């Protein structure tokens, strides 16, 4: 497991994972990404449980969260993170196909930090992911207790 888990990507679709990683790879951020494929695994990672029990205790600098996930869905993960004192500071970006107002409202009410609709156009998609990665993992100063960026 990479010690530099600055970005936690929660995405169930392997193709979306590949496309996202391709986009992040263009800014050399790919090796700082931890991928979990469902909400349960994402919570395991954040709470250092199960297969993640040996990881360093630092929080990721940003979490890219899909909404439609197996087992525990994105909104449930978001709710749990934002109601936990130790985790609520982690910046969470919802990254989803859904443009539904209902999803947006619920995400913002739960305290999401950003809501990004995955563009269908690949260039726009790559740009969106790249900008997100750069902003949250490089430009933004994460809250104390997060993984530090490489010097």
């Amino acid at each position, binding site marked *: 497991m990479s010690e530099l888990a600055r970005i936690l990507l929660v995405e169930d679709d392997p193709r979306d994972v590949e496309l996202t990683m391709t986009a992040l790879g263009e800014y050399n951020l790919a090796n700082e990404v931890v991928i979990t494929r469902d909400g349960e695994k994402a919570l395991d990672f954040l709470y250092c449980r199960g297969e993640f029990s040996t990881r360093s205790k630092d929080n990721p600098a940003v979490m890219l969260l899909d*909404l439609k996930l197996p087992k525990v869905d994105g909104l449930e993960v978001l709710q749990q993170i934002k109601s936990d004192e130790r985790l609520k500071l982690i910046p969470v970006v919802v990254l989803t196909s859904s443009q539904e107002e*209902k999803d947006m409202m619920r995400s913002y009410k739960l305290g999401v930090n950003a809501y990004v609709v995955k563009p*269908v*156009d690949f260039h726009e998609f790559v740009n969106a992911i790249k900008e997100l990665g750069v902003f949250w993992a490089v430009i933004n100063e994460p809250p104390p207790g997060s993984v530090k960026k490489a010097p």
Partner: protein
Amino acid sequence: MTDRAEVSTGVGARLTLARWNIESHGIRSPILRYGLSVVSVAIGLGLSLLLQHYQFHDVELPVLTLSVALTTWYAGAGPSVLAILLATACFNYFFAEPIYSFDVSSRDLPYFFVFLAWAVIVASFAAVRRRIEENLRQARDHLQVEVEQRKRREDEIRILNKELVKRATELETSNNELESFAYSVSHDLRAPLRHVVGYSELLQKQASSLLDEKSRRYTRTILESAKRMGNLIDDLLAFSRIGRAETKKTLVSLDQLVKDVVAETRLDTGGRDIVWKIHPLPVCYGDRSMLRLVIGNLLSNAVKFTRMRAQAEIEIGCADGEDEVEVFVRDNGAGFDMQYVDKLFGVFQRLHLPEEFEGTGIGLATVRRIIHRHGGEVRAEGGVDQGATFYFSLPKAQDAAERTADTL
């Protein structure tokens, strides 16, 4: 519900009682009625004689008049007269001196007349009471019929209400289904599309040098089609959202709205020569963002379909009707063949080739849906190469506001 049941039991009991009364009063057969007259006087006579036998004197007067009264009460006028005659005869024969003769001694003559007068008075009292009772009974019958009718109507209303609740539930279910349908389209249909676009792009990048021109055109077509499908899905979702969204109605100045939209449109048509003719427009009552979409769609259509004109003319105005206003947007653009006018407002219906004018064909469908949700109508006029005019009507601000206030 139980209250209602109790009330109806109460009413039922009262009705049964009333019916019993009516039956006991309403002896209709003449034989029975006159029979009652005879029997009642006979019983009265028997009773009087019996009492007299046991040394109770002077009871015949009240007992026999009671017989007359009962006959009048239950059998009516004719039997009453018979009862009076019979009772008088009995009185005369059995109780007025000389006894056992129909003669009346001069000493008992006043007594005899008193009896007769008394019997007549009692009979007429009974008759009057009977008439009053009759009237009351009629009123009660009338009321009873009304109560039953009301009950029937209440039952009907209850059935209709139940039906309505059922319909509402069904509607809600289908609305929810529609919502979850749109939701899954939004979530699940766009993901594979994104992958088609993404991987085609990657393929183009990766294998561009290996592919010949034909293959490169194929990948380009895949990309374009996928993007087009993305637009269609987005448009369809937006369209369905308009149908599901609540309309938040306020007073909207169409003047201001048109000015805003025109200003916005001008930014995108910098190089073109467009003459805007904007007439004064009224204030109407509606959902501002939806009406903005209507005007936006109509104006962007007008701009799009006048593209080939050296000088485009777009005119916006309105005709003031009695209880509605009709706004029009007129252009001197490509126009359309009036025989296809019915297709104009359909979803994904287009009257031009995609090479001529871009677009998915959702704009006018959206306009119609929004206007219908506002209680208005849309129509269009035009000719090929002679421009087009699109009309939409809206209820007047005052009327619409009042109508809404009424329903609140």
